[in-house]
């Protein structure tokens, strides 16, 4: 195995690994500061923050010969015997000078900058900069301009690392951003009439190591040090991008992509990034209710038509209603987690052993969209179709779709139906909903009012993606488990909690316990036993092994 010597510490790297000095030093616990380098982008070695000293140890003699000048760590590959020095005085002085140079034209407006608190320029200045400002220049011009519908550019804060420019060229592919002008007057800009407007545009804000690119959706909404982050999974499509849900006091402020080499690498799309606003929509269904007998003629407002039911009573009365109605059909939404789907199927079969189980409605918008960098936005706008299908297969209902449920109900083979939803956008039209009009008992569990919910006997609120805990299986059979980021609004029980209680289990809903139970009893989910790593597991790989 090749050995790299980082500040005197010998570390082994893989024989076929191609690492640069930054990555190799990280293995040894040493951070080489850098701005322009990003593992997902091409190397330009222009910020010069990662300058280090390197050398080569002769394998035969053990003698070390050093390169007589500084080299950029990002551009220098390591091999057996590479010597990396990250803490010599030469390196420290060089870092201090780069910091000083970057701050010459920087407005240092941290108190009014959104990036403050998570800014590399700040962090590196505290760690590597010098206290004294030797340049008597006053670069306050505070210019900003829109570069696209979602992104604002704060011109003076930019340090010209060109990560954003390279991203639009190499990953999103539309090349909207460019460098204009020359030398210290150069700026990032777009060509007039061609704004930064693509579905991956938001990533340039994540890439920006300083406060130059601001996300209009997040700008001035929250100081970043108030935010708490939960490792989560985006529910926007079946790609299942790993994300961080950043929130404060049960309010989501932004979503950020979480690095996951198996799923989304470093990126996420804007559909997902801004796809959390429905969580805080005032028009969400916020309480459980049962249709009043007296108002069943359809008069009165929906609020009047439904009688609010305490959740403790929902647990018992819902079961009684469904049992009384007779033949049950259940649509298991692909928005539910594996755990929720599994419990729902168990409840349905305990009420009616012959219950007709199908996959819920799968929303599809357009076609899969793949970008030049390989990132794909899926047409299937639900996160867990694969997982729900596997669960249904366990219950002998594999391959059944929403259309099968519609046909089943239309054929009069069901007396009661339980339709789970959780869709952030309208998904059912009046005609389709009318299929369910003649049922004895219709349970609709969804985020928003719909024509189906107007027909419901039971209207139950659903939880949004950040309010759930559990496991989703993406389009590539990759399963990721995640925790609950925020509490749902008052009056809303996430589906898992209701199902847990309806199954008669004691205590708080324990998604991890349910997952272990599924993994222990069902071969397709065997890979979910024990702790699921943060990057998730591929269900098929473990099965084959």
């Amino acid at each position, binding site marked *: 195995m090749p050995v790299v010597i980082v500040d005197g510490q010998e570390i082994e790297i893989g024989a076929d690994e191609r690492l640069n000095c930054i990555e190799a030093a990280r293995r040894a616990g040493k951070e080489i500061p850098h701005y322009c380098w990003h593992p997902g982008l091409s190397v330009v070695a222009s910020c*010069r923050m990662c300058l280090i000293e390197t050398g080569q140890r002769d394998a035969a003699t053990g003698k070390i010969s050093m390169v007589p000048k*500084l080299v950029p760590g990002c551009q220098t590959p390591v091999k057996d015997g590479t010597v990396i020095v990250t803490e010599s005085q030469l390196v420290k002085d060089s870092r201090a000078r*780069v910091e000083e*140079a970057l701050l010459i*034209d920087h407005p240092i*407006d941290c108190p009014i900058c959104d990036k403050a608190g998570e800014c590399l320029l700040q962090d590196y200045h505290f760690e590597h900069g010098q206290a004294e*400002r030797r340049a*008597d220049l006053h670069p306050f011009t505070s210019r900003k301009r829109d570069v696209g519908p979602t992104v604002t550019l704060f011109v003076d804060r930019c340090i010209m690392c060109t990560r954003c420019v390279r991203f639009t060229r190499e990953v999103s592919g539309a090349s909207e951003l460019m460098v204009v002008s020359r030398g*210290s007057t150069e700026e990032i800009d777009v060509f007039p009439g061609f704004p930064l407007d693509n579905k991956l545009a938001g990533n340039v804000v994540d890439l920006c190591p300083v406060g130059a690119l601001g996300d209009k959706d997040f700008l001035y909404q929250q100081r970043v040090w108030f935010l708490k982050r939960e490792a989560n999974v985006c529910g926007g499509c079946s790609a299942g991008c790993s994300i961080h849900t950043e929130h404060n006091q049960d309010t989501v402020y932004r979503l950020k992509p979480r690095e996951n080499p198996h799923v989304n690498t470093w990126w996420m799309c804007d559909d997902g990034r801004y796809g959390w606003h429905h969580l805080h929509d005032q028009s969400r269904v916020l309480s459980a209710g049962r249709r009043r007998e007296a108002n069943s003629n359809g008069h009165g407002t929906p609020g009047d038509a439904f009688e609010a039911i305490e959740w403790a009573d929902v647990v018992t009365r819902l079961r009684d209603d469904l049992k009384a109605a007779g033949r049950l059909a259940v649509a298991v939404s692909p928005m539910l987690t594996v755990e929720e789907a599994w419990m729902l199927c168990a409840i349905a079969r305990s009420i009616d052993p012959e219950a007709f189980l199908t996959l819920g409605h799968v929303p599809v918008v357009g076609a899969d969209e793949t970008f030049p960098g390989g990132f794909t936005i899926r047409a299937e706008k639900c996160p867990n179709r694969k997982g729900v299908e596997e669960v249904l297969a366990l219950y002998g209902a594999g391959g059944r779709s929403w259309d099968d449920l519609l046909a089943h109900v239309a054929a009069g083979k069901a007396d009661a139906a339980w339709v789970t939803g959780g869709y952030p956008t309208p998904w059912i039209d009046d005609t389709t909903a009318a299929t369910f009009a003649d049922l004895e008992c219709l349970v609709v569990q969804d985020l928003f009012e719909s024509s189906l919910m107007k027909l419901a006997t039971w209207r139950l609120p659903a939880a949004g993606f950040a309010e759930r805990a559990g496991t989703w299986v993406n389009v590539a059979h990759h399963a990721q488990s995640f925790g609950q980021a925020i509490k749902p609004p008052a009056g809303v029980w996430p589906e898992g909690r209701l199902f847990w209680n309806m199954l008669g289990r004691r205590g708080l809903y324990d998604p991890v316990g349910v997952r272990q139970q599924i993994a222990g009893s069902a071969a397709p989910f065997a890979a979910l036993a024990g702790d699921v790593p943060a990057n998730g597991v591929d269900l098929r790989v473990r099965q084959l092994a």
Partner: protein
Amino acid sequence: MTPFKPVLLEAVGVPDGHSIASYKSRGGYAPLEKALAEKQPVDVVEMVKSSGLRGRGGAGFSTGLKWTFLPKDHPGPIYLCINADESEPGTFNNRILMEDDPHQVIEGIILSSYATRASTAYIYLRYEYPQSWHRLQAAIDEAYAAGYLGKNIRGTNFSLDVYLHRGAAAYICGEETGLIESLEGKRAWPRIKPPFPAIEGLFRKPTVVNNIETMACVAQIARRGIDWFKSIGVPADPANPRDPGSYGPKLYCLSGHVEKPGCYEAPLGITARQLIDQFGGGVWKGRKAKAVIPGGISMGLMTESELDTPLDFAGPGKVGCLGLGTAAVVVIDDQTSIVDFLHNSCRFFAHESCGQCTPCREGTSWSLRMLERIKAGQGRLRDLDLLLEIGNTMGMMPGSTICGLADGAAWPIKNAIKKFRGEFEDYIKRTNPSGWMVTDPVPALQIVGAH
């Protein structure tokens, strides 16, 4: 010194010297035909290599050696780029060659393409040279018509197309990888090396970048032979194994405060004083030289007492200059302020820094702004130390930048302050009698007014 008969400049003053007929009457293109008929490409490489020809563009790297870095038996295309983006201040030797004897350059290009097995050559021409553009294009057309360019040249299976590309006027396009990027239609940001252009250059294919004057030298070596070439110039220093010697004639661009500025051909190794006195008619108005730029502004400064330095590839380095550079000798007389000189130099580099690497982008602009302040009577002695620190830490040599532009920007700063520190101190003390001694940190930034 024996009188030297110009070779590279032999067409200057010849009526219609830029035409193919005139060039052929002087013996041109015959060596090319001979080489194509009798020599293999490797022989031409060997000829140039053993002639000791070093690149005339500035760095002085062995031309033949550069060609041997190309991959052997490369299956795809190999490109030859001719750097005619002559933008070093004070330099105009390429222009003379392109305007007065373009066929000499083209013959060199054809020979070099044959040697490097390139079938496409690009001439990257500085935008501000319209006359060169017209003359070169006319010469290329003549060469096509005469069958020296195009398919199956002179009945051999060697084909060559030459394209004349007019740049967009930026100093950085003269850096070889900046030139390549610009030729590809991109922003001329120099590439990180390795890979070097010989491995991965234009359109990611093996590429050689050579200077116009180098091409003229190749043509003359083919015509007059290796021995002729090696009989001119300065042989290698036996005490320095890394010195390959400086052979051949060189075009010196003499400008500034001399009586007869111009482009003069002389053997490599002529001293600055000889050049000024024998060719330039001495410093103008009977004055004395205060300083002389040995080879373009980025090479630094020589003082009066250093004027006997031979202007070969090794000479200027011995007196603390960066090198011979483009051999553009600019004379500064004793009534010129070195502060003004440095201000002008910094202004140039701050304007021409491509802005890619932080130390160069900010260092050049900071040094300019410091000099503006000094010139405005607000200088402090401490500024000289800051300028020196910027100069010492910016560039390829300390490793802080991708290309050599920063070294070129740093050298005038370093040389001017080290060699003329007294004058700077006098200037600062005279113009800022109350504040020159201040060494306090610069006061904190002014509070921003209400937005």
